[in-house]
């Protein structure tokens, strides 16, 4: 009896130790195997074009020259030779899991890998906490960067650091076929479903403050009420399963289109209500982010100029170039 009890006591910490050791290996594997395949064709382009196109397309902070001496957060990333990036693979075609292999795929994933490549960092680790934790800031050093199609808004600037936009998505209203809504005004007094902590929720509540470069923002229909579900697609899933507590859905146009293509009961209504400038974000509570933000911003300018972003957008968004408005 006592010998067995002692053996059990010895085994317990062992089990815990293996548990702690295992995760370190697993998350790195998926992106590592994927990196060479997706990056190979793109890496050649910047070599020939980059020198001629130093000036970024969109207005950039005064950082068009490469950061002279990497310091702070950037230096730590370069030294570790590893960048930890956020992604939430629940949003095809931005970020999703390959159905057959379970690997990360999508536009945001490719942009992340390209940024890492141009930073000169050889390992990319993806981490996947829920999206609302990312836009809340204070990442507690859990990840370095999020290429998560995050919209630039004024309130978010207080907790996050943004680069220039790397692409723009149209915010699209949609309904289900039985609702009989045919134009945007038809949503007056209706309930509209949106994903948690999204800019779509801000728009419905009248608190959306986009930067000037975002262009015109339509007014929300009169008397609309919002309801949230954990992620955008859950709204369409509710309709598919026969829940019709709400007649509206506001989401990114590609997301709504993907749902329609998969035979969800969804119809698009009217023109996009606004265009979201989507940027790479960093945790604003990190003190020494400046050179990292500047360097990634410069890289994005380069990727705009040499056509890499357009190429990736056309690859993932059915030939659409969403990199400018």
């Amino acid at each position, binding site marked *: 009896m006592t010998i067995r009890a002692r053996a059990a006591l010895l085994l317990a910490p062992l089990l815990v130790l293996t548990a702690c050791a295992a995760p370190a290996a697993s998350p790195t594997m998926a992106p590592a195997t994927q990196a060479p395949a997706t990056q190979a064709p793109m890496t050649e382009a910047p070599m020939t074009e980059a020198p001629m196109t130093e000036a970024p397309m969109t207005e950039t902070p005064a950082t068009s020259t490469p950061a002279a001496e990497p310091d702070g957060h950037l230096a730590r990333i370069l030294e570790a030779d590893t960048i930890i990036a956020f992604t939430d693979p629940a949003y095809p075609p931005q970020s999703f899991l390959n159905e057959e292999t379970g690997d990360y795929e999508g536009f945001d994933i490719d942009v992340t890998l390209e940024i890492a490549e141009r930073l000169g960092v050889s390992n990319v680790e993806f981490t996947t906490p829920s999206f609302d934790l990312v836009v809340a800031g204070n990442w507690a050093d859990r990840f370095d960067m999020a290429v998560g199609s995050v919209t630039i808004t004024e309130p978010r600037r207080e907790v996050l650091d943004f680069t220039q936009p790397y692409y723009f998505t149209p915010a699209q209203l949609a309904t289900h076929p039985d609702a009989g809504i045919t134009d945007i005004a038809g949503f007056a007094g209706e309930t509209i479903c949106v994903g948690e902590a999204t800019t779509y929720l801000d728009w419905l509540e009248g608190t959306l403050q986009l930067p000037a470069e975002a262009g015109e923002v339509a007014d929300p229909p009169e008397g609309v009420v919002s309801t949230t579900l954990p992620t955008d697609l859950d709204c369409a*899933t509710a309709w*598919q399963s026969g829940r019709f507590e709400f007649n509206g859905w506001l989401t990114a146009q590609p997301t709504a289109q993907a749902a329609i293509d998969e035979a*969800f009961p969804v119809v698009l209504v009217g023109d996009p209500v606004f265009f979201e400038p989507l940027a790479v974000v960093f945790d604003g509570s990190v003190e020494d982010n400046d050179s990292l933000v500047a360097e990634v911003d410069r890289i994005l300018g380069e990727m705009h100029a040499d056509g890499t972003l357009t190429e990736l957008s056309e690859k993932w968004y059915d030939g659409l170039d969403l990199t400018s408005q």
Partner: protein
Amino acid sequence: MSGETVAQADQPTVVERLARAKVRARRLFRFKFFVVWVVLVAGFGVAFWFAGRVDPEFLRVSGPIIILRGVQITILLCLSSIVLATILAVLGALGRLSTNAYINGVASLYVSVVRGTPLLVQILFIYFGLPQLGIVLPAIPAGIIALSFNYGAYMTEIFRAGIQAVPPGQREAAAALGMPEHLIMRRIVLPQAIRIVVPAIGNEFIAMLKDSALVSVIAVQELLWWAQRLGRSALQPMTGLLLAAVVYWILTMAFSLLQERLERRLARSDR
């Protein structure tokens, strides 16, 4: 267990006939029970299938990934957590029964705080709170700590009850033999208490299997995470959730069976 009959002649005795009738009745009961399960489960399956909520292609292509990668992490999480939680619970129970006011205070506060706050809140605190103290644990260890911390508190009460359920005569007899206090606890009380609490620990473990789904919010890629992400990626969220539900159910059934066996084994000395 079944009645041992004394065969005297060729004619079956009354006792024998009664025993056979009992066996037959039990078999019939099992058969009917089995039929009810098969019919109901098949009915639900068919209903989902024809409602168009199940995509066989998704199950074929992505199902194995969800099951292989997800179940692995879920079981790793739960086994590690139940071991840690048991250690915490033994310490907690000894603390709760301690006559030392400081130790008792700490243990009681632990139980009170953990049982008084939602598990999801505790998970988020450990994920985002600990790094502010300079401890940045990867997602899986953070999840294990959250689960064991939470379950340790509930199991503290289970162990406390188990220790108190050991008849006081046992303790008195050991004391009368001159056994020191710490040995009485280790050799006399705890072994008997553990036998009393094993069924309850099994229940906690099964509950934990399902609660472990909550740590998917802090980037632990367990069963529900894989089911949800692959489901959304393929725009088949319902199929993903349904698969996750079935797998959790099978897991809990398997562990219930194990628990039953363990209980039967531990109950042997009672006879």
